[in-house]
């Protein structure tokens, strides 16, 4: 039981990171129907830009600011020079998906080139604190609360602000939203900015776990997909819940009673993804659609 509680706690930590990244991915999907294979590398980018800051002696919460700003600007810039023009030329979903694979490779290996193959850190990881039922490092605690704060902010934005409502409307029915006078280009750009900022933030959260390296985001990408699809693609709340389930599931799979080797735990999460797509492709929170 103690083991299970500890694993659940670990699962919530990683699930929180996945959730932040997953919301960024799913917001863009909701509006553009684009599955962005470069999303994982957006995380890595955010994490490394913050490394530049902490390397220069800044505290992480200060170094995070330019990283998040850069993440937003980068995502927005790509919309401006790549995705927007391609959409206007009538590129198909699959074309865009393949472009995002190319973009992912360019990004990831440019990061490798610039930052090298080694592992960076924001700082030493502190001793675990015993909370009685489980133990977590202070960094883990920051990850959970930091992610929760970001997700809460996104939820409030979606519910309360005009932009958030426009984003939801656009995601529900593009034609209807367009007809009702929503400036689609502007909302698309804002969505990218939010997604970029959120993803860079998620990258920093991921980096807080300890190791920062060129493949970190790519390794997380399929788990992010899993969280997104489990919750129902395009649904921000679904992505939050789906990601937590994915995080906890893969940790629990290594429980001594289940005995999945920890090398294989991501495989378990992937399996959840596949099974979900087969039995309920619309996800936990998605709506059933005809054809």
């Amino acid at each position, binding site marked *: 039981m103690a083991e299970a509680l500890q694993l659940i706690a670990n699962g919530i930590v990683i699930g929180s990171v996945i959730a932040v990244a997953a919301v960024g991915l799913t917001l863009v999907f909701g509006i553009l129907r684009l599955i962005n294979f470069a999303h994982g590398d957006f995380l890595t980018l955010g994490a490394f830009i913050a490394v530049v800051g902490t390397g220069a002696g800044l505290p992480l919460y200060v170094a995070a600011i330019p990283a998040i700003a850069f993440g937003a600007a980068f995502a927005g810039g790509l919309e401006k020079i790549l995705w927007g023009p391609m959409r206007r030329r009538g590129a198909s979903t699959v074309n865009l998906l393949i472009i995002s694979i190319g973009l992912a490779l360019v990004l990831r290996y440019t990061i490798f080139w610039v930052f090298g193959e080694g592992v960076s850190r924001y700082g030493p990881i502190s001793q675990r604190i015993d909370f009685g039922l489980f133990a977590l490092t202070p960094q883990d605690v920051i990850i959970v609360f930091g992610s929760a704060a970001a997700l809460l902010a996104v939820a409030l934005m979606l519910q309360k602000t005009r932009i958030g409502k426009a984003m939801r409307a656009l995601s529900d029915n593009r034609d209807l939203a367009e007809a009702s006078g929503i400036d689609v280009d502007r909302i698309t750009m804002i969505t990218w900015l939010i997604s970029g900022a959120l993803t860079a933030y998620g990258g920093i959260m991921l980096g807080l776990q300890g190791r920062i390296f060129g493949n970190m985001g790519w390794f997380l990408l399929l788990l992010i997909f899993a969280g997104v699809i489990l919750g129902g693609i395009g649904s921000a709340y679904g992505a939050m819940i789906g990601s937590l389930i994915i995080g906890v599931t893969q940790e629990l799979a290594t429980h001594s009673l289940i005995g999945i080797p920890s090398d*294989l735990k991501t495989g378990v999460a992937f399996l959840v993804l596949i099974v979900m*797509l087969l039995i309920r492709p619309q996800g936990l929170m998605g709506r059933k659609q005809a054809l």
Partner: protein
Amino acid sequence: MIAYIEGVILTAGIFALLAQGLNLHWGFTGLINLGHVAFFAIGAYTMGILNTEFEVPLLPSFLAAMVAATLLGVVVALPAIRLRTDYLAIVTITIGEIFRLVLKSGPGVTELTRGPRGIRGYSNEFFFLREDIGLGFLTPDQYLLVIVWVTVAVVGVLLWILLKSPWGRVLKGIREDEDAVSALGKNPTAYKMQSFALGAAIAGLAGVFFAMDIGSLAPDTYLPIITFQVWTIMMLGGASSHWGPIVGSIIFWAIFNGTLFIPREIISGAEAAYLRQIGIGALIMAIMIFRPQGILGNREEMVLDK
């Protein structure tokens, strides 16, 4: 220089086979498959395991490799094939990764695959055979190169016949509009399944040759990057073009291995490796942005709206 050219042609042949399989999936049937590397891997491992653990002779183990890849194709296709395109992309890449993880650390499986340490010593019989079939004057690499390209040619002709036939017509119909095809009384699922299985079998055969080329099997050879390389090759040559996989593969590997000529004083070996990956990514993007029909693809087909 000779070594460079031989290396390019050999690798290009193996990847041309992979691209022929993928072209059947995507170019002719419209099925997006980002898990192609799994079929490549199962072919290699089936042959390797049968040969080393069970001492199965060469030809039967080649056939078994193709059969195993076909079966994996069916297993993947059975559930996945009715999913919409973007989901199919995610499911296939995920299955590819699951497969690699299981090869690497699956309980029970690693007794056969030897996990990350991998398998060696399966290729002797294949290379000894070259004396027997009168190719003793060739180096092992040249011999493998000949066998691979003969296979590429045979597969190419077989696919050409098949795709010219009414069977191929149904496939193209599915690529255009699955619902229309079922309204015409054909069962799209059955055809998609056959396409998937056949393309997988070809990839399995490519896996066997690749295993002969590199001489050892290790799970982490079979990363998704291989699938992306095959996609680049197919798109470069031109999807749904018969010569596309061959032309695309030769050009791709000529460029890819060309980074060997960059003097080490300019960039280090590690940097050259990164540069290659960046190059692949940039190439994928450039093709999709500037010439989505590829080198040999039909421009007219591309501009037509569905």
